[in-house]
């Protein structure tokens, strides 16, 4: 069972390594979108500090959406998905592998680069780690929820747009709590409660999303 999980993660990472452009596109998109705001809004420090959490979180949502549609569509097109559905390991396990690989490729780089980008907004240093931690807990939730949408829209024409319409509303609670974490910390209050809620999202998504993704994939493959 774990062999299949490891195999899927290793395979997807190897694929990402051999097509680096895909990974870099999402990361550059994130960097550029975030950088556009200080350029467009001028250099009013208080304004920038206020909008920083929201801007970075929204850019992270959009950038992780970019690579979502590719998550299962290539495996679907070349027949690998059929083999995954017929695997002797539970499909939920394989799906977890796919999501983990997606997060490592599309989520983790955003988390790592976000403190650097936050400097453009003159975010206080003590808030940088709050931002990074909130993204670290939040981005896996985005990958898990997004994968449900990707599995449901598999094989549909114009699936990309439908995917955004389906998934973005589901991202809203994560966005509110995630960006709220930094707001509340900047007001000098303890962000612990927000972190707890964000972690609870992660736990619930990690338990239930794989089941939903697996069911959606079986339906899409028929």
């Amino acid at each position: 069972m774990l062999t299949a999980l490891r195999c899927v993660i290793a395979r997807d990472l190897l694929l990402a390594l051999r097509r680096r452009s895909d990974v870099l596109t999402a990361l550059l998109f994130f960097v550029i979108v975030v950088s556009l705001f200080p350029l467009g809004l001028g250099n009013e420090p208080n304004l920038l500090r206020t909008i920083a959490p929201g801007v970075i979180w929204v850019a992270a949502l959009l950038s992780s959406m970019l690579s979502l549609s590719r998550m299962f569509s290539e495996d679907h097109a070349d027949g690998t998905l059929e083999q995954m559905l017929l695997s002797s390991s539970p499909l939920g396990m394989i799906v977890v592998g796919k999501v983990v690989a997606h997060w490592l490729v599309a989520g983790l780089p955003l988390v790592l680069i976000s403190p650097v980008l936050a400097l453009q907004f003159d975010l206080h240093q003590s808030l940088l780690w709050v931002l990074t931690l909130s993204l670290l807990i939040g981005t896996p939730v985005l990958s898990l929820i997004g994968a449900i949408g990707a599995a449901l829209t598999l094989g549909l024409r114009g699936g990309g747009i439908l995917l955004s319409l389906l998934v973005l509303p589901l991202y809203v609670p994560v966005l509110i709590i995630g960006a709220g974490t930094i707001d509340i910390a900047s007001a000098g209050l303890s962000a612990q409660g927000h972190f707890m809620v964000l972690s609870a999202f992660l736990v619930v998504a990690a338990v239930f999303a794989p089941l939903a993704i697996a069911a959606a994939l079986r339906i899409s493959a028929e």
Partner: protein
Amino acid sequence: MLEAANLECVRGDRTLFSDLSFSLGHGELLRVAGTNGSGKTSLLRILCGLLSPAHGEVRWRGGNIRSLREEYWREIVYLGHSSAIKDELTAAENLVVACTLAGIKVGRDQAMAALHCFGLADCAELPAKVLSQGQRRRVSLARLILSEKLPLWILDEPFTALDAAAVDYMQTLIAEHIARGATVVLTTHQEARIASVVMITIDLSARVT
């Protein structure tokens, strides 16, 4: 071993076949024939559980495959139309991944040996995107050599894109597998010449639906 009971398949508004029943035992080969669009691939997908039939059920050792699930999939190989080959991975990596997903532990050496049997020793380390259509097909078929212990092979058009020598080799491979007491289901347009084998043929286009 494998039993189909009153299968009916509906795609869109068309009934492809209905009331299709058969049973296969050890060492038997089922050849599914029929014109394009007669439902050969759909039948194979129903047999391996990818598609649910509109009516009827498929049983494996007496149990419905929809409740056996992983227990059934552990014992079968299904090779579909698409070869499940990733362009960016080498032939050997593709083979190892395919086997690991299927639950067969395969080392590098075994994978290389299997590719060697299919005449791919020279291209084992090349990325699959430079391989020809026939070579890609061979990479996915090489999985069969590593799946000798599995009692049911379901093969969709295994001979397409292969040259004459490879077709002969495939036929020997299938004959050997059946001689071991396993069951094979395949679709093909060519008359398969598989020696000394009990072959049952179902012609889907000749059936009145």
